[in-house]
C-alpha cells in the first residue's frame, strides 16, 4: 500500500494543516517510508483478540471513573484567557463565521 499526493492533501485537510507543495512531497515520502514499517503488523492474525485500551486492563478489570456532575473549579475566566490570542469583553474572538 502506498499513499499518493491526493491522499496527503485529504489527510492534511482533515488534520487542519496547511501544507505547501514542497512539504507535501517530503511528507508523502516520509509517511510512505513509515507505512513500509507497518506492513508486518497488518499480517498478524488477531482474530478473537480483544483490543487493549487501558494497559492495566490486561490483568484486571479497569473502569474509567465518572465524577459527580458538580462544579469543582472556581471561576477563573481572567486567568484562563490570559494566554488567548484574541479576547474582548471576556469573549474569545474568531473570524466571522456567519454572514
Amino acid at each position, binding site marked *: 500500500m502506498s499513499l499518493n499526493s491526493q491522499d496527503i492533501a485529504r489527510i492534511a485537510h482533515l488534520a487542519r494543516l496547511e501544507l505547501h507543495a514542497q512539504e507535501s512531497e517530503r511528507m508523502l515520502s516520509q509517511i510512505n517510508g*513509515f507505512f513500509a514499517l507497518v506492513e508486518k503488523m497488518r499480517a498478524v492474525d*488477531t482474530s478473537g483478540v*480483544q483490543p487493549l485500551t487501558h*494497559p492495566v486492563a490486561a490483568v484486571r478489570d479497569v473502569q474509567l471513573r465518572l465524577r459527580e456532575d458538580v462544579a469543582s473549579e472556581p471561576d477563573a475566566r481572567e486567568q484562563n*484567557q490570559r494566554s*488567548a*490570542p484574541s479576547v474582548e469583553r471576556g469573549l474569545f474572538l474568531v*473570524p466571522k463565521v456567519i454572514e
Partner: protein
Amino acid sequence: MSRQLHHHTLAELAGKLKAREVSAVELAGHYLGRVRAHADLGAYLATNEECTLKQARAADERIAAGDGGPLAGVPIAHKDIFVTRDFPSTAGSKMLANYRSPFDATVVQRLADAGTVTLGKLNCDEFAMGSANENSAYGPVRNPWDKSRIPGGSSGGSAVAVAAGLAAAATGTDTGGSIRQPASFCGITGIKPTYGRASRYGMIAYASSLDQAGPMARTAEDCALLLSAICGPDPDRDSTSLDVPAEDFTRTLEGSIEGLRIGVPKEFFAEGVAPDVRAAIEAALREYEKLGAKRVEISLPRTELAIPVYYIIAPAEASSNLSRFDGVKFGHRAQQYGDLLDMYKKTRAEGFGLEVQRRIMVGTYVLSHGYYDAYYLQAQKIRRMIADDFQRAFKECDLIAGPVAPTVAWHLGEHGGDPVADYLADIFTLPGSLAGLPGMSIPCGFVEGGGKPLPVGLQLIGNYFDEAKLLNAAHRFQQATDFHLRRPEGF
C-alpha cells in the same frame, strides 16, 4: 577537586538540609548559578529566580520548624510538559510560546507540597515526540558526556540537568521510553511507574493511553524518594488514574535479592545491538548473579512488532489530543488568514514542528473512515498480545532485564532527519510502554566513543505495581557498582 554541593545525591542533600549544614536558599543559589554557567547545554527553557528563592525560603522555614519531610528544600526542575503557574509551559513547541497555565500539574503540586524547590523548566522534544531532543522548537540539548552528541529524548533536558549537576533531580515523562532512554544516554537513573499510578492531570497530553510521569535522578534511592511523593490516586482529575494507594518506596530498598529471578529476553540481544553495549549489559547481568540473582532465559516474541504498533497508537492519540491547538483559546495564532478554516490551518502549520505534523498526519489517517480497523484497531489487538507475552514471561521470572537502547547516544544530526531511524532505536522501551509496565534505566557501564566514555543503561522491567521490586534491585546493584556516581568531565 573537593566534592561540591552538586556532586551529592538528592538523599545526601536532604540529609545536609535536615542537619542544617546547608540551607535551601544556599542550595538553590548554587544550582541557579550552575544553570547560568552551563546555558550552552540547552537543558533549561525557563527559570524564575525570584520564585525559586521564595520557595527555598519557605522550605527553610519548614525545616526550621521541624516539619520538613524527606524532600524539603531539595532543588529539582520539571520537564516542560508539566504545566506550572510560576513558569511558562511550552511543551517545547512554538505553539505554546509564553503560555501561562492557570494551575499546576498534580505531579508538580505533590512535589511542591513535599517541600521541593523548583529551579525551572526543562527542554524536551516538542510535545514529547522524539528520541533525541532534536525536535524542540527551542533548540537541541547537548549531552554533557560529549557535547556533539544528543542526550536522548524526549526528556533530554531532564537527563542533562541531572547528569551535569544543574538540578539534584528532575521530573520526566515516558510515553515510549522518554524517561528510560535519555537516562541511559546520560548515565543517570530514571523510572517510569505502572500506567495509572502517577496522575496525568496537567501533563500536556501526547498519547493518553501511554503517557506516564516519573523521576530522573542520580540513584535508585533518589528515585524512590521522589516516586513516593509522585504516585497515588487522583480520582477527580485523571479518569485513568488507578485506585492504588501511595507507597513508601524507600522502605524495601535494602532487601536481599538472593534468588531473584531475572528474565533475559533473547529478542533484546538480537542483531542490531552494538557489541560494546551488549558486553556492558552482559557484565551487569553477571554482577546480578554475583549478588545472588538467578538468570532465566525468556522470550518476548513480539518485540519487533512493538515499533509499528506504538507508532500507530501514539500518533492516533496525538492527532486527537493536539486538535485542541486551534489558535482560539490559547497558544499561537497565525498573523494572516482568511476565514476560520484558513486560520486553523495556518495556525497549526506555523505552530507545530515537522515531527509533530508528521505524527498528526499519520494519526489522522489511521483513524479516518475505512482505515480504522486495519490500523488502529489492529494495533490495539496486537497491543494486548504484547501485554499477554509479558504475563507469560512473568510466570518464569520476577524482573526482566536488557538494554535500554541498541546503541549509546548518537551524534546530533546523525539520523539526518530520517524519522524512521529514530523510531527503530526505541525498540526495547516500546514493548513495556505498550503493556503499561513499570520500567527503569540504571547506569551499568561505559563504552568508548571518539575517545570519550559514553554511558550505557540497563533496563529493568517489572510486573504491574512492582516499582518497589525494581527500585530494590536497582539499589542493590548501585551498592555494588559505581557507574551511577561517575560524572562527565568538567561537571
